[in-house]
């Protein structure tokens, strides 16, 4: 398997070098850019990139605007890194179609883990149709992937932890299919510190509790000895 290429857009020279080196050590091929024009050059030359890491504060331009421009022509995954770290920026960034958001200073390993998670999410994010549709519905519930948000049938925001949301995303991507416990554990490894069988069961029971809070029956069925199945019809909203 050839190394996946990441475009890193960061105006601070020191941090740019450090991040690039760390990504390379982790098996990625990296092309760097300090400004918006450099980013466009990096995007168009060389082997096709599979991920962009974008600083929000850039000289003369704004990472959010760049993200908007990239999205006009491309579905390439984008991770924002920001020194502001305010939730307004985070929400705006995710609304614009970014895939993740990290506030400086972040742990180097955290960036690698997020990059891997996004690249591994593979089938769902590579699918143009699915990517374009950011909202899904089941049993009256709505899931907004851009904002990583779940809303109840009455329209209230229902909080999920990161791991719970990832679990729900996995279920929604494969409705009416039995998903093995092993597979779920593997998928959630990036989030959970203790990815044992038990913690997956805890996660599933919490998700069930939240999905039944509105009074309905939670659409997650236990398939004894195998895993779980999402039993609701999922439709793009």
């Amino acid at each position, binding site marked *: 398997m050839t190394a996946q290429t990441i475009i890193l857009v960061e105006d601070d020279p*020191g941090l740019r070098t450090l991040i690039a080196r760390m990504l390379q050590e982790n098996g990625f091929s990296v092309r760097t850019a300090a400004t918006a024009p450099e980013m466009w050059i990096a995007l168009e030359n060389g082997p096709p990139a599979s991920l962009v890491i974008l600083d929000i504060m850039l000289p003369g331009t704004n990472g959010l605007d760049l993200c908007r421009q990239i999205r006009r022509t491309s579905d390439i995954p984008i991770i924002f890194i920001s020194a502001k770290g305010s939730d307004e920026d985070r929400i705006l960034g995710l609304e614009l179609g970014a895939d993740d958001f990290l506030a400086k*200073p972040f742990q*180097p*390993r955290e960036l690698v883990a997020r990059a891997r998670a996004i690249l591994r999410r593979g089938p769902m994010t590579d699918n143009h149709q699915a990517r374009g549709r950011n909202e899904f519905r089941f049993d009256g519930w709505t899931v907004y992937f851009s904002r990583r948000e779940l809303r109840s049938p009455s329209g*209230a*925001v229902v*909080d999920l932890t990161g791991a719970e949301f990832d679990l729900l995303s996995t279920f929604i991507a494969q409705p009416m299919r039995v998903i093995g416990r092993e597979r779920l554990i593997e998928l959630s490894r990036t989030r959970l510190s203790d990815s044992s069988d038990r913690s997956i069961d805890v996660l599933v029971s919490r998700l069930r509790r939240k999905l039944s809070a509105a009074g309905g029956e939670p659409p997650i069925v236990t398939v004894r000895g195998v895993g779980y199945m999402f039993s609701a019809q999922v439709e793009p909203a």
Partner: protein
Amino acid sequence: MTRWPSIGLLGRIVLILAFVLATEFVANTLIFDRVSKFALQDDEAHRLAEYLVVAHRIMDRTPAPARPEVAEELSTARLAVRWHKGIDTQSTSFALSGLRDQMLGVEPALFEAKLRLHLMPLRQGGDIAGSVELSDHSTMAFQTRQQKSFWPLTLGRIVALALPMLALALIGFMMIRATLRPLRNLMGATRRVGRQEPEPLPERGPQEVRGLIRDFNAMEARIHRLISTRTQALAAVGHDLRTPLARLKFRLDAAALDEETRAAMSDDVREMGDLLRSLQIYLGGEGQGLPAEKIDLAVMAATVIDSARDEGHDAYYDGPSSLEAFARPVSIRRAIANLVENAIHYGGNVRLAIREEADAILILIDDDGPGIPAERMESALQPFVRLDEGRSRNTRGMGLGLAIVQDAIRAEGGTLSLANRPEGGLRATIRLPRGPR
């Protein structure tokens, strides 16, 4: 000494106005009354004199047997006339000599008729009585009857006089209020200083007030400039330190250090990051710019508690499984998370309960820690105040946690209160008003 509640500037000025008007009214009335009384006496004397002359003539020409009857007919509502034989022996009262002179001045004929006047005793009404002698030396006696309508008349007069005064007082009240309005506006503006963008007050009203408003506007602009420069400076520090901190983290990861040193330095960097983050949240009012929306408060609180449990803390949630409310999700989530973190940090454990009241939702966050000494309770909510100052060095943040919580809850129209529980430990109570459904 009792302190009466102040009636305010407007009240004072109105009182002064009322006092002046009332004094003037009383003085006017007294003088007017005196003058009119004299005028009344004068009139009365004239009328009485003329009447008596005529009555005297009629009685004189009437034969004696018919006189009592005629006397009766001559009587009016205000004057009773009687006739009797013999001469009136009562002398004129000294008090009425003036009136007598007046009457004689009008009708000299009454002098020949030997007019006598005397005052009736007060218990008989205090009226004026008197007599004149007829040519056959019999006597025609008379007695004035005081009009009962005297008081209502005066009352009417007082009301007539008071009405314009009341109208004047009302107009005065409105004019004074209008004059004082710029001051009232100034009061409102004073309350807003530092809370929002300065909005210069229009310079209106009397000269002194205009000057005051001008100075106030300048002062507000100055204060705002001071605050915003400081806020910007602090925010810039917070922002600009993040990139070097990020570099430090990367370098630390790559540095050839023993694991223990690396972990310790890593913690230091994380602490610095936490400090910056809380500073930025406090200065930026994070999430308060986002609109309020419908949220499931119970799920939100339970999720915060679940996350704390996942980190291995002693955390319990007790409340409904679902409770919808209207609030700004980011800031209210942070408020709950901060209080839960505080409970774990200071108390070692946390129990979060949600209780519903008719008009409010209560979020109770309890711990079994030492609580807060009573004398520090007040300062606990102040920004940059840390309760374990000097005692332990593992405090995260800059003492902004509770200040951030308070700001977030205030933005929802709610309140935050802290209290030591009688059984030990601290209870933080968030009270949120029930919003529109």
